[in-house]
């Protein structure tokens, strides 16, 4: 479980400082797919980078099962990092290594396994993300979706307790997105990982959102799950959720039928 308490972050900007995050409070649960959603530029990536310790928050605490990452010295941070896997927006595979080399890299650096065991473990991860047969390809020879999957394999190779994904399906077609989403969701449940996924893709939200944190201009706008996201009257969130053409019709329909009904229900009770 990761608890974020009162996190604020600002950056130097021309003519002073610009605050990006304002008093963020949120909890991310074990064995669940936790989603951070919000418009482009709302501060999702900055929040995730604060949580993993690539940025240090100005104020606030970030507790990994009670351990505060903002108070850690370098050695403690290093220990914690071995429990973290991260999937970057652009995959961030090492160009100079093959898929197998990439997946083996964390094992080589941190595990005490023999070469054969490392290879076996890497192969298991590669098979798990359905990349069997591409072990000896270089990242430049893979498609975007395959790169994402290879990066997932690398992120889970050390059996992480916490998995972070920054926009895992940006730049992917809807079908491949669903494959990636399901893969992340399956892995999360299978290994009981605390998974935090950063996305603005409504398909993912509807598909795998078990715990959703909506970030609006650096504030927490709403927290709930994929079923509750229909039944809420937060205007900012509705603007975000129903922004696509596909959902606009749903919204119109719901404005006439569902939305008012649910308001009616709350009024009745």
């Amino acid at each position, binding site marked *: 479980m990761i608890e974020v308490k009162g996190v604020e972050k600002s950056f130097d900007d021309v003519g002073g400082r610009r605050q990006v995050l304002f008093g963020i409070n949120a909890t991310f649960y074990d064995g669940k797919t936790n989603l951070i959603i919000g418009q482009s530029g709302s501060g999702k990536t900055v929040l995730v980078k604060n949580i*993993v310790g*690539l940025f240090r928050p100005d104020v606030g605490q970030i507790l990994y099962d009670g351990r505060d990452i903002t108070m850690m010295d370098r050695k403690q941070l*290093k220990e914690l990092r*071995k429990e*973290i896997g991260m999937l970057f927006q652009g995959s*961030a595979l090492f160009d100079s290594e093959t898929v197998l080399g990439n997946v083996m890299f964390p094992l080589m650096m*941190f595990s005490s396994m023999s070469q054969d065991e490392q290879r076996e473990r890497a192969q298991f991860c590669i098979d798990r993300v359905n990349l069997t047969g591409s072990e000896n390809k270089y990242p430049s020879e893979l498609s975007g979706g395959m790169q994402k999957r290879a990066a997932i394999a690398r992120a889970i190779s050390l059996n992480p307790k916490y998995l972070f994904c920054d926009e895992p399906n940006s730049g992917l077609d809807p079908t491949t997105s669903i494959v990636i989403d399901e893969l992340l969701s399956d892995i999360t449940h299978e290994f009981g990982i605390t998974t935090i996924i950063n996305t603005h893709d409504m398909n993912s939200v509807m598909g795998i959102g078990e715990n959703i944190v909506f970030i609006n201009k650096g504030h927490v706008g709403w927290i709930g799950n994929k079923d509750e996201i229909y039944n809420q009257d937060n205007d900012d969130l509705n603007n975000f959720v129903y922004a696509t053409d596909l959902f606009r019709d749903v919204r119109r329909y719901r404005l006439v039928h569902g939305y008012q009904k649910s308001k009616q229900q709350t009024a009745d009770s």
Partner: protein
Amino acid sequence: MILNKSLDSFGNYCMFMWRSIGVPEKWKVFFRRYMDEMAKLGIDSIPLILIVSLFIGSLCTILIKLNINNPLLPRYTVGLTTREIILLEFSSSILCLILSGKIGSNIASEIGTMRVTEQIDAIDIMGINSANFLVMPKVLGLITIMPFLVTICMATSLFGGYLICVLTSIVDPKTYIFGIQTMFIEWYVWFALIKSLFFAFIISSISSYYGYTVQGGSIEVGKASTNAVVMSNIMILVVDVILTKLMLQ
């Protein structure tokens, strides 16, 4: 303003280098990368060094011959002067200026690309000191291989001078050989080798710094690799003056 900015960069550079000093996570991995870097930065530069040295050596000989057509000077002066130029300045300083164009831009663009594609963040996130992981093998690798490159350069340049003597007979080859052996001061060779260690450090560390601190995209990577080469060149010249003053006087 400019002074302020330079001091700022220098401070950041020092902090970066401080961060990159440390015990490698895994010696085996470090050693492999160290060997790779020596091959990539050093061995792969040998063809360039051979070509440049051969031509500069012969050019030196031709030009010196042209300029000291004085009957009062002994004929072996051509060989002797060529040797002094090669040993004192060309084989270390000028060679490193040339190499900084190849090696410096290579290092800066490689690390810069890793920065903008978040590969460095990926290394950090795993709990590895990315500065140490990326920079140490390059710096140590280049420092190790550089004296060998300088030695190759010395030999090839002198051979270039000899070759031009044989081919054009502007100087009798025997006189040339005599010239490059006369009044030989061994310390000059050491001087060149010692200087080259400093230059190797300058090229590799400054280029790594520029690559590591890239912000933005591919355009910035291009700028960083240009800046890395320019800054390495300036620093090589500054350090060259200082070392020459300290070690030869």
